[in-house]
């Protein structure tokens, strides 16, 4: 202790104890519990979303790894649209598998006799002990199609038993063969979680496939073989596979190893969690903005306290630390609450996303990840809070002597302010990259956000400048005061514009991106649109089908031939070797796929030629290539141009063609659409099947039609589009729910940020209103001033946010989802009104009592 007898030397600052700083932080917090609670709430939902999604992702990754072999059910698998050649079979045998299974699968109609119902199904004919990893989950347990007696039995998708009330022992007719239902199927290792959504699965023994009579020329059949090896799949086998890959490619045989399947599944799951993570990240960002804004308003009231502390010898660092620690601790509490909610979310996510998950998720809490996410969220919020904290260092003790005195250094000259901004920029970018799992996406996301921030900040600045120049002299008093409040000293215009504008922008962009995502799966419906498609019609069945439709008074809305073919060469270069066309890389799927083309002498109403001329007729007589019409997606995938020469292998026969027209097809119309249309006179002799579309006005007609077709033409499949659309919308509903679930967090954070910002600036409004009251202003006038101020802010901020999100929505629709963008006017207007009202109501609720209580009472309460 220094007393007056100590030597009069002095050269350094006081070593202030951490204990005192902590004590002061605690003492100050006692009187500000509600405000601090709001800061904490700003952080809660962002951290909750991050912890929840990341914990879920880790669990998912662990499960995918631990159940990796079950994702394939075997060590190795090959598949093809045609039976395997001897060369391929020799190769797979050379790898010396210990066991093998083979599979033939196709889509067909099933007739359930007892239920008197028909349904398009996906039939798998199995031979051998597949699966070796995981098991066929059936009710009753342990039933396998190849274990059973020579009698034809079927294991039918569980969904069918629910739909038609089927029971064990009932029968199902597939083509010419009737099967007894031996069990219901729950899960097949290796199948995607969505398998069976559109065509439920039926497992039978492969030996019975032939007796169905369903595999005919032109039928779409998939062949597969699975293997296990004594020592599993090892490096030697991988090397041998590498050598044989060109042959597999040439013969269009796909191969899958466990590792590849894990990577595929991992990628799909990552994309899903990446999206959810970005949604969560938006809440974290909004929380950051909220905490920064509310802390800034809160600290304005601490100016005097800091000045007084400085007069008594507290150093600038100590003053900063008192509030820095206080707010960081509050953010930590918010983060801990957020993390606890996040743990709850990770238990909810598997239920919400159940339909999309490839593995059974055994949930555990990945503590290290939870703590890491918690700390990151906490650090993130604390750094945002330091923007308004730093100016505390610049408060001079002189302001204790002269109230309102401030000759502090401007923030822009303070290197620490720049350091914090740099940390925020780098941290936000880093976090964005980490959460989106992609360098490019992470950076793009941040650049987009920065541009939006600049744009909204610019609008705020423009607003204040315009208001300053605006002559408000003739305006009524309240309106004039309200507008002037927006640019007077200590105004919160810029901050509220940014918080409300960015909040609106982020939340509405999320809504537009959800809309775009769902629009991808939208299908046009209507009276003249077909709702039943019959495919796999053999040429000799075509007339019979036409007669059947006529007898039922059903109009044939489309009837097209289908000829399967493969692309052999483009402009003289072999398709399997092509990497680029016209200098641009091509998409491999478009080279390798089996094309199901048609021929006709007309263009349909829903097709449009975008360049070139459609040729209706042609013949082999002229020695020129056959003119064909190509759909735009293929043109894009293969980078084709008019005049390009395409060589096709039409079931053994090479046909040289030339691109003479490019078509745009409306894929939303559920008609049989084609990538390639040949002119009349070329493909007629080729083996073909036909597809016919019609409109059945009610479910009864639909059922009768299906029944008639299945009975008379067992090989013809009937697709009930109403059912498909229903299934699709169910899938999209599930996706939409998952997105909305996460978006709720963003909306909550947005609301909290708004409330926090407005509430913390209450004191300033109170002081102004009390002064006005003292000068004789009526309650009505004060309310009118506040309404003008908050309504102007709300409208301008929401309109700027919405305008920006419409731009972002257009960009997302055009470049990411590739759907048409149209402004959803009703939603847009409703959002502007809702956000403006919300701002106004929050502002007014917050000013409640100011106008109706005696001025002195209000001042004493607020101090």
């Amino acid at each position, binding site marked *: 202790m220094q007393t007056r007898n100590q030597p009069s030397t002095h050269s350094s600052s006081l070593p202030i104890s951490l204990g005192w700083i902590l004590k002061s932080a605690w003492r100050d917090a006692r009187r500000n519990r509600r405000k601090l609670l709001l800061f904490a709430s700003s952080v809660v939902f962002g951290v909750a979303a991050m912890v929840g999604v990341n914990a879920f992702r880790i669990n998912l990754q662990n499960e995918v790894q631990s159940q990796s072999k079950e994702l394939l059910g075997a060590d190795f698998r090959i598949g093809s649209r045609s039976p395997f050649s001897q060369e391929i079979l020799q190769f797979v045998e050379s790898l010396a598998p210990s066991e093998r299974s083979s599979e033939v699968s196709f889509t067909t109609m099933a007739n359930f006799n007892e239920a008197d119902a028909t349904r398009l199904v996906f039939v798998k004919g199995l031979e051998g002990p597949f699966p070796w990893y995981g098991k066929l989950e059936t009710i009753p347990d342990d039933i396998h199609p190849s274990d059973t007696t020579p009698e034809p039995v079927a294991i039918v998708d569980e969904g069918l038993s629910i739909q038609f009330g089927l029971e064990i022992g009932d029968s199902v007719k597939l083509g010419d063969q009737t099967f007894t239902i031996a069990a219901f199927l729950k899960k097949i290792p290796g199948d995607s979680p969505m398998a069976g959504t559109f065509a439920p699965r039926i497992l039978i023994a492969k030996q019975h496939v032939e007796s169905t009579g369903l595999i005919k020329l032109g039928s779409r059949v998939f062949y597969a073989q699975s293997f296990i090896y004594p020592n599993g799949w090892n490096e030697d086998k991988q090397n041998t596979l590498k050598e044989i890959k060109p042959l597999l490619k040439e013969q269009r045989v796909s191969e899958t190893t466990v590792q590849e399947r894990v990577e595929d599944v991992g990628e799909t799951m990552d994309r899903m969690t990446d999206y959810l993570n970005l949604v969560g990240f938006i809440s974290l960002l909004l929380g950051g903005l909220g905490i920064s804004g509310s802390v800034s308003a809160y600290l304005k009231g601490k100016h005097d306290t800091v000045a007084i502390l400085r007069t008594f010898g507290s150093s*600038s660092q100590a003053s900063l630390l008192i509030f820095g620690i206080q707010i960081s601790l509050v953010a930590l509490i918010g983060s801990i609450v957020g993390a606890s909610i996040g743990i709850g979310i990770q238990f909810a996510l598997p239920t919400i996303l159940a339909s999309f998950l490839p593995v059974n998720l055994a949930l555990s809490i990945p503590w290290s990840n939870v703590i890491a996410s918690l700390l990151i969220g906490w650090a993130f919020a604390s750094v945002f809070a330091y923007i308004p904290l730093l100016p505390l260092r610049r408060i*001079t003790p002189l302001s204790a002597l002269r109230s309102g005195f401030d000759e502090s250094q401007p923030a822009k000259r303070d290197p620490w302010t720049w350091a914090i901004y740099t940390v925020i920029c780098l941290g936000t970018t880093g976090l964005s990259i980490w959460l989106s799992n992609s360098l490019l996406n992470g950076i793009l996301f941040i650049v987009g956000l920065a541009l939006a921030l600049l744009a909204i900040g610019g609008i705020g600045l423009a607003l204040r400048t315009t208001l300053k120049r605006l002559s408000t002299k003739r305006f009524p008093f309240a309106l004039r005061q309200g507008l002037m409040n927006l640019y007077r000293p200590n105004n919160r215009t810029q901050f509220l514009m940014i918080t409300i504008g960015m909040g609106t922008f982020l939340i509405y962009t999320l809504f537009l991106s959800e809309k775009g995502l769902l629009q991808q799966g939208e299908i046009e419906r209507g009276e003249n649109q077909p709702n039943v498609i019959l495919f796999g019609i053999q040429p000799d069945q075509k007339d019979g089908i036409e007669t059947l439709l006529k007898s039922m008074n059903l109009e044939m809305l489309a009837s097209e031939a289908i000829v399967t073919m493969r692309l052999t060469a483009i402009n003289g270069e072999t398709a399997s070797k092509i990497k680029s066309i016209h200098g641009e890389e091509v998409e491999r799927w478009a080279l390798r796929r089996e094309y199901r083309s048609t021929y006709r002498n007309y263009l349909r109403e829903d097709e449009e030629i975008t360049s070139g001329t459609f040729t209706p007729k042609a013949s082999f007589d002229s020695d020129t290539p056959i003119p064909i019409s190509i759909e735009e997606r293929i043109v894009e995938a293969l980078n084709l141009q008019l005049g390009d020469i395409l060589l096709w292998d039409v079931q053994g026969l090479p046909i040289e063609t030339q691109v003479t027209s490019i078509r745009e097809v409306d894929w939303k119309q559920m008609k049989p659409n084609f990538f390639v249309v040949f002119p009349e006179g070329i493909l007629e002799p080729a083996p073909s099947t036909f597809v016919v579309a019609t409109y059945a006005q009610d479910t009864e007609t639909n059922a009768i039609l299906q029944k008639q077709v299945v009975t008379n033409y067992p090989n013809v499949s009937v697709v009930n589009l109403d059912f498909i659309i229903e299934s699709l919308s169910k899938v999209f509903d599930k996706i939409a729910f998952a997105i909305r679930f996460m978006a709720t967090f963003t909306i909550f954070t947005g609301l909290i940020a708004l409330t926090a910002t407005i509430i913390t600036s209450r004191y300033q409004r109170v002081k102004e209103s009390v002064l006005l009251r003292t000068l004789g202003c009526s309650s009505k006038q004060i309310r009118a001033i506040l309404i003008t101020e908050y309504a102007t802010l709300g409208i301008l901020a929401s309109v700027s946010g919405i305008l920006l999100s419409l731009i972002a929505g257009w960009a997302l629709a055009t470049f990411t989802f590739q759907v048409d963008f149209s402004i959803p006017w009703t939603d847009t207007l409703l959002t502007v009104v809702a956000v403006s009202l919300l701002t106004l109501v929050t502002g007014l609720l917050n000013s409640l009592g100011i106008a109706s209580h005696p001025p002195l009472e209000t001042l004493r309460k607020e101090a």
Partner: protein
Amino acid sequence: MESQTAEKILQINKLEKRYQSGPKELHVLKDISFSVDAGQTISIIGPSGSGKTTLLGISAGLDLPSSGSVLIDGIPLESLDEDSRAALRNQKVGFVFQNFQLIPTLTALENVMAPLEIRGESGARSKAIELLAKVGLKQRLDHFPIQLSGGEQQRVALARAFINNPKLLFADEPTGNLDEETGSSIVDLLFNLNRDAGTTLVLVTHDHELAEKTDRILQIKSGVLIEKIR
């Protein structure tokens, strides 16, 4: 020389203060020099805007002069950085403000303890209670400033000003916000505490009656200081 300066607790030499106000320069303090002996009481009087509070602020190290020097207990303030000046204030200086300047989130007791707690000294609590008892607020220890009257708040401020045994006490219009009766009791308290502690008092006021209670009166007018001879 050394013994002579040791008796001078505050020395002001050729002090100038200018402010830039838009394109104009305001010359607030002009060539001010004076010194105060340890234990002396002095008052600085002058009309509003004459520069008294600026002079007090610079003398206490709350602000820096444009030129000239200030020595507190022989230590030249211009050689110290802001945090070192803060430490010096903590050890040698006490303040009483016109508007009390109590920290609104701290109780009366905590406000008084603050200067000692800042320097990490033990026994702050008992010393603060003792001082609050001296100013007649023993029953109001846990009250927040908002729960106290103006006079009570200024008494807390007095207790706070004396808790660190300052060598030099600066008081800026200590009765400016109080009624006559309360003001008078605060003045008595201030002078009594000052006498008991042997503190040097520098008082800024426009109240001539109050100024008359001090040993010396310095008058400031348009930034120029004149010693008033009684």
